[in-house]
């Protein structure tokens, strides 16, 4: 899984490989489509799909037999605590160091570098110029700070809009698909749907984006060309995130016993009424978790948007990427921090909503 992910990853090689001109399949693909060699790009996309599909197929064969899973329901688990004895403090220290080194430290470095005018000297001459500075100064070749740059502010709104829209469309579609799959278990319809829903997982995001350009780049019948529009981004992102949504939908639906829905059916409630008043309130917690996952993925995502992006609808990750490739690491880091804050806020909000909407769970 990780290997397949690494082959298809765009963001890491694109940014880390920049200074040394290291190329991978996915960065080449981006370069080709960027420079107009669309056909060659599509060939590369197919190659990329083939590589990751082959890898996933192999890994699937290795872990086959784990097809069935059971859901734990009812009374809930009981947590057993045991004293760690003399290991208590060393283990705590180890946990702290690992936690700090992997998550807190990079954030601090990011913050510091967004404040430092020179990349080589992280902790000297700190300035807030890159955040709120006026344009026209000596720093950053006269560019204004983050919050004074209308393009970045627009990108911020675009990002939020994209994240929220995609989270909503994905979870609704995912729930509908998951419901169909769970309730028709064992029929060919359910089997075909669940296989189809997993297909996007096989396709690396950047190849996925290429496919969507090929599909919607030109007008189809009455449909106008969607290239570069927000709609295309939403469409591609929804399809791309569908496997996660279907999976989380299936797992939350699996926890609702058939009886609960049948008892609603016996009252004469139609499918829509049951979905709105029974299924939806009971699955909202799982759905929110899934939606947050999708939202966070979308806000951070670069691979998918990098191809579908145009100057008219920039998103934060794309802007950060462009700054990074132009050498304005401070701006890029500052934007990354903004993305991080959005993601944290989203998960915090989800947590608050969850505890509010499911009072009965206590």
């Amino acid at each position: 899984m990780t290997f397949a992910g690494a082959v298809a990853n765009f963001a890491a090689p694109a940014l880390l490989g920049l200074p040394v001109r290291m190329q991978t399949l996915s960065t080449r693909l981006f370069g080709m489509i960027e420079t107009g060699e669309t056909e060659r790009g599509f060939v590369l996309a197919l190659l990329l799909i083939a590589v990751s599909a082959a890898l996933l197929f192999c890994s699937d064969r290795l872990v086959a037999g784990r097809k069935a899973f059971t859901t734990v329901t009812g009374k809930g688990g009981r947590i057993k605590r045991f004293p760690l004895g003399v290991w208590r403090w060393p283990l705590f220290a180890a946990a702290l160091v690992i936690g700090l080194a992997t998550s807190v430290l990079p954030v601090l470095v990011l913050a510091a570098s967004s404040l430092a005018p020179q990349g080589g000297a992280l902790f000297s001459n700190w300035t807030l110029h890159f955040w709120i500075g006026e344009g026209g100064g000596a720093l950053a070749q006269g560019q204004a700070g983050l919050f004074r740059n209308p393009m970045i502010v627009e990108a911020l709104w675009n990002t939020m809009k994209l994240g929220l829209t995609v989270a909503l469309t994905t979870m609704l579609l995912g729930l509908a698909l998951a419901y169909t799959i769970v309730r028709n278990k064992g029929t060919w319809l359910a089997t075909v749907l669940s296989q189809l829903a997993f297909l996007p997982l096989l396709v690396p995001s950047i190849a996925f984006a290429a496919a969507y350009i090929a599909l919607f780049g030109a007008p189809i019948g009455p449909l106008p060309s969607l290239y570069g529009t927000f709609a295309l981004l939403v469409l591609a992102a929804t399809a791309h995130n569908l496997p996660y949504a279907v999976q989380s939908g299936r797992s939350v639906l699996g926890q609702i016993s058939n009886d609960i829905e049948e008892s609603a059916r016996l009252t004469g409630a139609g499918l829509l009424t049951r979905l709105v008043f029974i299924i939806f309130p009971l699955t909202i917690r799982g759905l929110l978790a899934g939606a947050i996952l999708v939202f966070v993925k979308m806000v951070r995502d670069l691979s998918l948007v990098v191809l579908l992006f145009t100057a008219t609808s920039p998103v934060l990750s794309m802007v950060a990427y462009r700054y990074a490739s132009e050498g304005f690491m401070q701006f890029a880091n500052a934007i990354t921090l903004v993305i991080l804050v959005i993601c944290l806020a989203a998960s915090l909000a989800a947590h608050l909503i969850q505890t509010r909407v499911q009072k009965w769970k206590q």
Partner: protein
Amino acid sequence: MAPASTAPAQDAIRISQLVKRFGDVAAVKDVNISVPRGAFLVLVGPSGCGKSTLLRMLAGLEEPSAGEIAFVGRTVSSGTGGVIADAGARDAGLVFQSYALWPHMTVAGNIAWPLKVARWSKADRNARVEEVLALLGISALRDRYPAEISGGQQQRVAIARTIAPKPSILLFDEPLSNLDAKLRIEMRSELMRIHRATGATSVYVTHDQVEAMTMASHVAVLNHGRVEQFGAPIDLLRRPTTTFVASFLGTPPANLLPVTRVQDRFVFADVALAPAAFAAGHERVQLLYRAQDIAVGRVGDGHQLVGRFAEAAPIAGQSMVTVMVGDLRLTGMAEGFFTATPGDEVGLSFSSTPDAAFTMEGERIDP
């Protein structure tokens, strides 16, 4: 409206030649049952006998493979038409074994929701909720969530929710099986009170023959998807038509002894039990003896069989004594409290005539 004079149409529930197949396996085979309005029909049988499948077909959650179900003269399901009247449109309510309460609604919310779906006005809804809460004695729980109340209380809520829209047919799927013994007995009379109060026709599925005998106006004993016997509980107890019914119903269970004719007597383990004339023309039969027709110890010069003591249970001043004779479990009665060590030799005296005789295949032989 159909004319009220036609007798079959008056049956509240009419099941004819009903069959349900899952793949190659027939879960319900050729079931014919009809009960009048206000009846309390109990479907009883061991697990896997098809009783729950039958109930689900009555509820409209499962479609029959063949045959037909009619409620008050209206065909609601058939083998050719599938589910004709949808589960929500057959004026029936189902109480689930798991209660199936909606966990995100309060007790009052659970009861009011079906009424909301049925488009009752808010005032009617509130009045009805109060009414059924009072009927079930759970008015104090109205604002609680299902997870906050006990199993017995959840059961009451489930029943309240089902009867709130005033269905003319009530279906119960083993509703008491998750309750402890004492609560079960309480809820049994509670359910009968509610049945009378609503005037609905009830169908009740259980594997507990005591529930069947105490609650039913009509009992259908099911075995392997087939109705072994259908009738009033007392009739089934008095005149079981098969050995399955005889051994399934009644407390303590009736005794069945396989016997062979030797000259003019039927003999079990060298002990002559009944005259051959009791089942004339049969060489090997099974004799049915009620526990009260077998006395523990020697009584007069009666026919005595000796076995090994297994267990004894006091019941109404007497003791139910179970003795193993070879592989056969036999239950007789002893006065007062009987005690013995398992394995002790115990004699059993049989009354001069058995209750009934059955063929070795289990069919009743009428003398």
